[in-house]
């Protein structure tokens, strides 16, 4: 030990400094400040589980809105089957049940060396010091080609006011009218969501006896991206004559004023309703950490850390390393799943421990096909080798172990009822 060189001494001195901070940790875990940005499924869940598992770790959730309006079940708000209040989730239980601190505001800047976040609040700017920062801002939209005004031609891909706008436009449709929607290029939030929307809007128009009314689906992708059997049957059978599906329809320009859209598969002028769902990318605050070619932030699958080990990105904004063609889907359920892995890894890091490698993540969801029937989708991932398109190991990541949709006979009313059990459980596990 006596022949340590100067560099080793500095490292040891660093260890001694870290050590000096540890007695705080020893006294009932009064260590650790974690700031979470974004109060959707990922952000709410990571805040909750950090407190649930982390003793006295301090958690502050930064979110501009007073409530979260879930995209989950929001297609049923479009058809008036559910009210907006049914999918509106508050933050009070995170405070009262779990001791999460809330700051209403928008994160605008990060100082990684200083471990400090700047938040724009209604009354000014505030700074929050952190040991770990978790960013869960959800999606942003890629720029639209042409003249897109979401007030005129709503996306309704972030639920709330947009959902109400689209709902009112659908309610105003009459005989022979055309509902035209786009499916964004993958990866996008909720792979089954656009196809589900096409189904429930078609079902609504039939129930309202809107003779000759059509749902026209312009898919930027070469095929249906989720539950191809259930949605394929729905398009060609259940909603035959109402839904018209066009693959490989990449949007070249849009004009909201005339509700016209030009795609690589054809042009539609003067749609009655134009539901343009744009291509997607990481939320702006997460994108500061650097994005990949698809616009999302690469993360370590064991910790959800970015290139900066104390800054994590979970949920729709992150890009998890996965086998080619077996991407981890962007969904509220998956964001909840990733949040738990991230929370566990942060708590271990605060204790100087390495992340657990025996991990699994999952997604499951139910998709209404009509006002009485639903399908489901299930996908599971475990940490380990991931593979390229030729089956060669390309590294470590979340390998998709299983995926599948409901067998045909299970696309039924039982599944429709189970959909609400699933949603309410997921809402509670994330927000209560």
């Amino acid at each position, binding site marked *: *030990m006596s022949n340590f060189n100067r560099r080793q001494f500095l490292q*040891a001195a660093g260890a001694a400094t870290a050590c000096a901070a540890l007695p705080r940790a020893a006294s009932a*875990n009064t260590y650790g400040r974690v700031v979470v940005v974004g109060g959707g499924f990922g952000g709410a869940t990571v805040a909750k589980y950090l407190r649930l598992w982390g003793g006295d770790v301090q958690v502050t959730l930064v979110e501009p809105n007073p409530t979260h309006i879930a995209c989950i079940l929001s297609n049923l708000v479009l058809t008036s089957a559910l009210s907006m209040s049914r999918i509106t989730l508050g933050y009070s239980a995170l405070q009262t049940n779990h001791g999460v601190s809330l700051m209403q505001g928008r994160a605008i800047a990060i100082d990684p060396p200083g471990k400090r976040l700047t938040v724009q609040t209604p009354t000014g700017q505030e700074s929050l010091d952190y040991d770990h920062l978790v960013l869960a801002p959800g999606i942003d939209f890629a720029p639209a080609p042409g003249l897109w005004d979401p007030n005129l031609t709503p996306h309704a891909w972030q639920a709330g006011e947009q959902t109400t706008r689209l709902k009112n436009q659908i309610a105003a449709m009459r005989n022979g009218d055309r509902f035209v929607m786009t499916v964004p290029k993958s990866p996008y939030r909720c792979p089954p969501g656009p196809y589900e929307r096409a189904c429930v809007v078609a079902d609504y128009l039939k129930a309202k006896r809107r003779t000759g009314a059509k749902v026209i689906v312009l898919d930027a992708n070469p095929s249906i991206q989720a539950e191809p059997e259930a949605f394929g049957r729905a398009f060609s059978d259940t909603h035959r004559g109402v839904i018209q599906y066009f693959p490989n329809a990449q949007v070249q320009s849009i004009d909201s004023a005339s509700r016209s859209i030009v795609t690589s598969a054809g042009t539609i002028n003067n749609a009655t309703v134009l539901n343009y769902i744009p291509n997607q990318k990481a939320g702006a605050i997460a994108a500061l950490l650097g994005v990949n070619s698809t616009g999302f932030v690469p993360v370590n699958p064991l910790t959800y850390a970015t290139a900066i080990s104390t800054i994590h990105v979970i949920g729709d904004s992150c890009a998890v390393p996965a086998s080619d063609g077996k991407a981890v889907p962007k969904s509220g359920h998956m964001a*909840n*799943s990733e949040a738990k892995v991230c929370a566990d890894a942060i708590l271990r890091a605060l204790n100087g421990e390495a992340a657990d490698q025996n991990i699994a993540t999952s997604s499951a969801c139910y998709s209404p096909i009509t006002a009485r029937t639903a399908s489901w989708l299930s996908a599971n991932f*475990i940490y380990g080798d991931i593979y390229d398109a030729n089956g060669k190991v390309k590294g470590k990541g979340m390998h998709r*172990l299983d995926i599948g949709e409901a067998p045909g006979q299970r696309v039924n009313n039982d599944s429709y009822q189970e959909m609400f059990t*699933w949603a*309410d459980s997921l809402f509670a596990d994330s927000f209560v």
Partner: protein
Amino acid sequence: MPFPSKTISLIALSIGTVLGSTPAVAQVPPGRMLASQCAQCHGTNGQGPGFEELAGKSANDLYGDLREMKLRPVEGIMDRQARGYTDQQLRLIADYLSTVTPSGNAD
């Protein structure tokens, strides 16, 4: 620069002592994070609300059910979800959930 060997050994000792007395990670039950993947549909800690409550069920029953669902032809969604875990992981999940106190709200 001669490094004071006594100091470094003291530091090493104090690191060991402090880490040894830090409870959080040492007490993390194996299977807790894996079992948290059940919570989206069965409630936090398997205590509901959601599909059937899992908290406090017999570990052998849970493991047996999960293995059966994993191996039988797919009918329901759990037959798929059970395929997403190794047998060792299913055992850890079952063992953890068996240690959780039931909510008292079971039907």
